[in-house]
């Protein structure tokens, strides 16, 4: 008989029996939802609204994205979810020469405060959560200043911003800043939000974006925990109490096609997190121990071949998430391999969530797999493997040296290589790719949607150019000098300086540039534009 493994390489037996969980103690290892160690859920869910239904959106200039979000809300979305285009994620303004050709094609372009006002104009930011896949520092400052302009008390803002200073630089969205500044900006965003937007999760550990390079669940969560632990220690060293900020830590995890493993990943994460916060960081507030987990289903699991099959993949992944008791989900859409989601794909993603919740009764009972010989055994194994890898990574020593030395990048690139190899040799089965393939000329269904391309948003590029020329430059320069001064010192929280910069008319690209200068880096990593304040 051929031995079977999970996607992360955990051996599977054909049958699990009582002896596989003979040592399992309900009270200490599982407990009811809402009870330590929160394996079965961070709270007992009753009735409707089991999770936040949202779809990742963002296209063109902020007003186009605003309309996109309004359409999704009209279709029944219960949380807003926006992603910046690749220049925004990389802290480049739309009119930067390297950004012009891609502005607004893979997300929306947010360069200045007015862009945030345009993005949120007329949207219920006071009553619906706003999830942002944006650079945390600028995202928090943008939402905060927009709320002020809209007359919304920032204290009522709910939602999250992804915060991943360790891994983005080399493995996802590079912002061309040194490790120390990346960590400082991430930590500043959390500290700022803790004080000014106390209901907002500015510490959303986004393991999705690293995972989708091809990492398995153990690698994904181990890297995530290493980052959470580092930022937690940073915040403690600033004099914050663990219970001041831990309730606002959340995870955004990947959800792959390996169904039971995905469920074990989330259950193990809740338990590990609770134990770590209680035993290691001495958190007392129960909310500090119960971590919110949201998930984005794997874009990597989606295929360019026969895109209709991705609807099935999204459904299976969403089902695993519903059974795991996540707080929110976003389904990678059927056109994922080609583009940012089309209107049609958004609708299918949202309808998938609605069908699951309303028609299947899947969320009526909390943690339905609790006590399963197999799931409990797998949860234990996943937990052990994640923690072993966290300890192994921390044994390398100082995280800055580890990051700069390429240890994290190696883990990620090796995983990417392994994934490509497994797809090529068929170890990882993928229908339409390495099993049951169809000739390209017969693969026509949904091609019209998937092959429609989004043009660069020249409108936004022009708008930013005009804006740049129309500003009170004395005011802009002063705010940039102030921010540079703050960044040159160790202590000041840079988010206050970014908010002031936004109000004065400075752009994200300019503010990022002067902060790079304060850390001895070039203002523009591509050496194409110069700093308005010289230096």
């Amino acid at each position, binding site marked *: 008989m051929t031995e079977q493994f999970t996607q992360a390489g955990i051996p599977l037996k054909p049958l699990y029996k009582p002896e596989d969980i003979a040592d399992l103690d309900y009270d200490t290892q599982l407990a009811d939802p809402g009870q330590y160690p929160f394996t079965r859920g961070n709270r007992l869910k009753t009735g409707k609204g089991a999770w936040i239904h949202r779809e990742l959106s963002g296209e063109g200039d902020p007003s186009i994205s605003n309309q996109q979000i309004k359409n999704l809300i009209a279709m029944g979305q219960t949380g807003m979810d926006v992603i910046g285009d*690749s*220049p925004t*994620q*990389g802290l*480049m303004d739309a009119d930067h*020469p*390297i*950004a012009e*050709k*891609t502005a607004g*094609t*893979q997300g929306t372009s947010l360069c200045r405060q007015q862009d945030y006002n345009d993005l949120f104009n007329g949207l219920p930011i006071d009553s619906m959560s706003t999830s942002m896949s944006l650079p945390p520092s600028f995202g928090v400052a943008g939402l905060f200043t927009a709320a002020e302009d809209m007359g919304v008390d920032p204290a009522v803002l709910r939602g999250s911003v992804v915060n991943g200073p360790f891994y983005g630089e080399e*493995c*996802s*969205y*590079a912002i061309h800043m040194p490790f120390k500044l990346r960590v400082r900006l991430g930590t500043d965003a959390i500290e700022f939000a803790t004080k000014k937007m106390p209901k907002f999760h500015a510490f959303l550990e986004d393991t999705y974006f690293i995972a989708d*390079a*091809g990492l398995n669940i153990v690698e994904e969560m181990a890297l995530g925990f290493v980052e959470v632990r580092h930022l937690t220690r940073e915040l403690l060293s600033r004099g914050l109490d663990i219970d001041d900020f831990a309730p606002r830590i959340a995870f955004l995890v990947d959800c792959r096609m390996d169904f039971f493993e995905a469920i074990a990943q989330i259950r193990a994460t809740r338990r590990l997190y609770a134990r770590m916060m209680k035993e290691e960081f001495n958190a007392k507030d129960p909310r500090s121990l119960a971590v919110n987990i949201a998930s984005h289903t794997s874009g*990597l699991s989606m*295929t*360019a*071949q026969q895109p209709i099959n991705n609807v099935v993949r999204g459904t299976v992944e969403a089902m695993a998430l519903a059974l795991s008791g996540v707080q929110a989900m976003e389904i990678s859409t059927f056109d994922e*391999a*080609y*583009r940012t989601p089309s209107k049609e794909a958004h609708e299918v993603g949202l309808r998938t969530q609605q069908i699951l919740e309303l028609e299947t009764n899947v969320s009526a009972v909390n943690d339905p797999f609790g006590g399963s010989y197999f799931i409990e055994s797998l949860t234990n194994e996943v937990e052990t493997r994640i923690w072993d890898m966290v300890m192994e990574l921390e044994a390398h020593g100082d995280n800055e040296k580890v990051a700069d030395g390429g240890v994290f990048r190696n883990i990620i*690139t090796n995983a*990417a*290589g392994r*994934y*490509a190899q497994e797809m*090529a040799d068929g170890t990882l089965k993928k229908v339409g*790719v390495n099993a049951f*393939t169809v000739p*390209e*000329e017969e693969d026509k269904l949904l*091609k019209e949607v*998937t*092959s429609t*391309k*989004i043009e*660069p948003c020249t409108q936004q590029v022009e708008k930013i150019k005009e804006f740049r020329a129309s500003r009170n430059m004395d005011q802009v320069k002063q705010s940039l000098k102030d921010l540079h001064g703050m960044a040159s010192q160790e202590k000041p929280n840079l988010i206050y300086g970014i908010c002031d910069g936004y109000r004065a008319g400075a752009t994200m690209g300019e503010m990022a540039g002067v902060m790079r200068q304060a850390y001895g880096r070039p203002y523009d*990593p*591509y050496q194409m534009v110069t700093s308005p304040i010289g230096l």
Partner: protein
Amino acid sequence: MEQRNKVSICVLGMDQHETGALAAARMLRDAGMEVIYGGRFNLPNKIIDDALQDDVDMIGISCHSWEYREYIDELMDGLKAKEMDVPVVLAGSILSAEDRDELMGKGVAEVFGASATPEHMIETVDRLCRDGAA
């Protein structure tokens, strides 16, 4: 001894996706070729200058954004201006059969979409490196 094929692999503009480029680099290295890995954030001029300096037999660009559409003319014209006949290959799951026709009409030597097999890609790259763009 026969000289090894020398191939540059890179990503254009602000396309942040690197997994495809890394997989391509690994695949060609495993096939015995020399890969000059140019990573991300390259504009056409940089790709041309690097190709000239490294004297590569082929330029491979991994595409997971639509920036190739904006830069391809600049790249092909730039190569022509420097009288470089190095073949250019684009690869990425986003590239459809229609995109392939359009790009090859602009002088791109080959386009690999989602369904290209490793064997086919290695064989084609090998042939292009030997024959040049012509």
